[in-house]
């Protein structure tokens, strides 16, 4: 007999969400100049969590001025002093990590298991790592005394709200830049809590400014003539628009965009480990991951065995309350994203791919999508080409390593890929040929602040993380 799971919810009482939040400019919370606000909801329940000020062009100008005003002093601080501010931030994040994990789960819809065990530890680690660089920039391989760029305009997505903030702010501050950051419209809260962390850390006013808003806020920030550096993580379409927008200017940009990662399973791969890797690859964070392994390439001879095992495993995934500690898949981040996933999955079916999902009961309110597999997929299918950004896996097959590489590279993207095989030389040969910025061999979706991350081709340019991540914020 199967045992039922008892609910094991994480307590919400650890986080205190105010009914409303302002923009964070020059060290203070303030209303938008035009008084606009928007609501942020919990995607798991559609409950309104808070009302947040919505920054317009005038607010962008105010924030950029504040960042510019703070730049001279901040960049002139000895690196060791900047480092200590960042170490303080890292420590305060560790102290408040449970609160932030619950907050992120509420605002984003992702399982508490992930915010608690992945997002938050990585956020703190990222600040800790770049803190240490602040007084060692002369030794980073970019020549003596590399200079910061100035004011960085940073636009981040909703899939890892606080982690993406850390990826942007930590290297920017370590190198002596000041920042104006726009969190995504569906997940503004953790960035606003971060503003409070800056207060606790005693960070000088204007060094970090947070502007919640929609795409128009981001566009105004990118366009502002006193911004020296753009860092964007999001869709390839918006990334291209930014590249056009800043053409002919002196603005430096890093773009971390979409992906359609291939996860290649060879016939000698240990099936159980491969299945776990496939699950991590596409169902981590509900598949709302730019580097997701959304295309499974399985060697034909082991297809049946692998798919049987994968389906069995998917049937054990627990979809539901993100605050429940046993939950594997939480809610889709927004109604809009859910609609996009549905449209693309429907296209997969309409084009003749075979759709399968385990039996699972989805909650009545909120935005939910069951883990989904498509088989009989060809390279021409929409579900094999377009980034779905949801818990949808397309399965393709191959016979030879040559064919696997050709299919893996047959995409406009080039962010991530996976390889599963026991044969070391094959791992290295295939890894060599894959046109992707991150290759996970016999593992998937691993991240670390020391490890550079970023794409080839239309997955963007520049690297975040590691020594490489400093270059994006230095005048080198």
């Amino acid at each position: 007999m199967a045992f039922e799971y008892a609910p094991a919810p994480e307590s919400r009482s650890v986080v205190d969400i105010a009914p409303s939040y302002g923009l964070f400019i020059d060290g203070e919370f303030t209303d938008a100049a035009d008084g606009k606000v928007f609501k942020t909801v919990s995607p798991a329940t559609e409950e309104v969590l808070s009302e947040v000020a919505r920054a317009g062009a005038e607010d962008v100008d105010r924030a950029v001025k504040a960042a510019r005003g703070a730049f001279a002093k901040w960049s002139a601080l000895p690196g060791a002093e900047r480092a200590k501010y960042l170490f303080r931030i890292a420590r305060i994040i560790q102290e408040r990590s449970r609160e932030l994990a619950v907050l992120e789960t509420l605002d984003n819809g992702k399982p508490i298991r992930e915010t608690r065990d992945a997002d938050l530890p990585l956020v703190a680690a990222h600040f800790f790592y770049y803190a240490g660089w602040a007084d060692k920039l002369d030794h980073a391989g970019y020549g003596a005394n590399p200079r910061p760029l100035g004011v960085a305009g940073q636009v981040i997505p909703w899939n890892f709200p606080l982690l993406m903030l850390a990826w942007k702010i930590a290297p920017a501050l370590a190198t002596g830049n000041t920042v104006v950051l726009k969190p995504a419209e569906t997940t503004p809260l953790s960035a606003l809590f971060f503003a409070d962390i800056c207060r606790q850390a005693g960070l000088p006013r204007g060094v970090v400014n947070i502007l919640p808003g929609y795409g128009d806020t981001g566009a105004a920030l990118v366009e502002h003539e006193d911004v020296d550096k753009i860092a964007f993580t999001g869709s390839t379409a918006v990334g291209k628009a930014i590249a056009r927008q800043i053409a002919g200017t002196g603005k430096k940009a890093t773009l971390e965009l979409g992906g359609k990662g291939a996860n290649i399973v060879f016939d000698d791969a240990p099936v159980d480990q491969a299945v776990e890797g496939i699950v991590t690859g596409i169902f981590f964070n509900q598949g709302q991951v730019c580097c997701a392994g959304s295309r499974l390439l399985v060697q034909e001879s082991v297809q049946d065995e692998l798919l049987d095992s994968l389906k069995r495993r998917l049937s054990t995934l627990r979809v539901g309350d993100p605050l429940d500690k046993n939950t594997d898949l939480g809610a889709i981040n927004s109604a809009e994203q859910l609609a996009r996933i549905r449209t693309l999955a429907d296209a997969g079916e309409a084009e003749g791919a075979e759709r399968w999902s385990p039996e699972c009961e989805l909650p009545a309110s909120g935005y939910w999508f069951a883990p989904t597999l498509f088989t009989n997929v060809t390279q021409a299918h929409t579900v094999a080409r377009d980034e779905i950004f949801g818990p949808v896996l397309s399965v393709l097959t191959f016979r030879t390593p040559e064919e696997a590489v050709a299919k893996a590279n047959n995409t406009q993207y080039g962010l991530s890929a996976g390889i599963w095989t026991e044969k070391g030389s094959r791992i290295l040969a295939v890894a060599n040929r894959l046109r992707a910025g991150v290759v996970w061999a016999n593992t998937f979706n691993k991240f670390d602040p020391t490890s550079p991350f970023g794409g080839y081709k239309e997955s963007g340019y520049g690297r975040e993380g590691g020594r490489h991540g400093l270059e994006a914020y230095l005048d080198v």
Partner: protein
Amino acid sequence: MSESERLSVFKTYKLYVGGKFPRSESGRVYEVTDQKDRWLANAPQASRKDARDAVSAARKAFGGWSGATAYNRGQVLYRVAEMLEGRRGQFTAEVAASEGISKSRAAAVVDATVDRWVWYAGWTDKIGQVTGGANPVAGPFFNLSTPEPTGVVTVLAPQDSSFLGLVSVVAPVIATGNTAVVVASERSPLPALSLGEVLATSDLPGGVVNVLSGRTAELAAPLASHQDVNGIDLYGADETLAKELEIAAADNLKRVVRPHPVDFSADPGTGRLTAFLETKTVWHPTGGLGASGSGY
């Protein structure tokens, strides 16, 4: 018959595409003159079609060139320098005529150019160690970052520095394993076209460097918007053209090097080497050897 009475043999300058020397498919040529407007040669005026052919050739050559060992690329590039050295007289005459400088100054420019090529030849098997390396991740993983070439790169060569400038922008692109489509200086294309002849006799596989002469704006537009070009160095474009090209290049997110003045006689640094490199990071579990058993 004394030398001064001997009628010299002119050279027909041709494009260099895919290891061959075609005339422009358009059949067009344009007059190249020295700084005093005296006729030097008729250079091929390449067309959009020539540009597309050059991209195909560069793409075809990319697998072999990027897959060659760094040592081998260094050997081939050094061979190019040897061939350049043997043609110093010819390049000196071309540079002097093109740039309107004295023979002795032109000779110094040519020497610097050959030395520049040697410098880049030595970089092929060092840049990977300088820019890549192991990353100390917080977990039981082997984690290695390696630079890899971006792919097919369009290079708009400097308009004024027809040889030293040309080599300073082309050599770093191919040293790192990219293949190149080079648009020569519009006014002074002859050193670039002659460089093609050197490359053809230097063990450099056909298609690794392709040289086009003609109108920079006409050739650059289809190259900047070409979906199979991965990067573009806009050095030879003026401000207005560079902006248009950068907008077109955004369509497939080409890596763009914006034009900015460079003192080609100074130490070039590694900037042009890293501009067209991607960083690939590979992870693998390290596991343990103890009773815990499995590596992953």
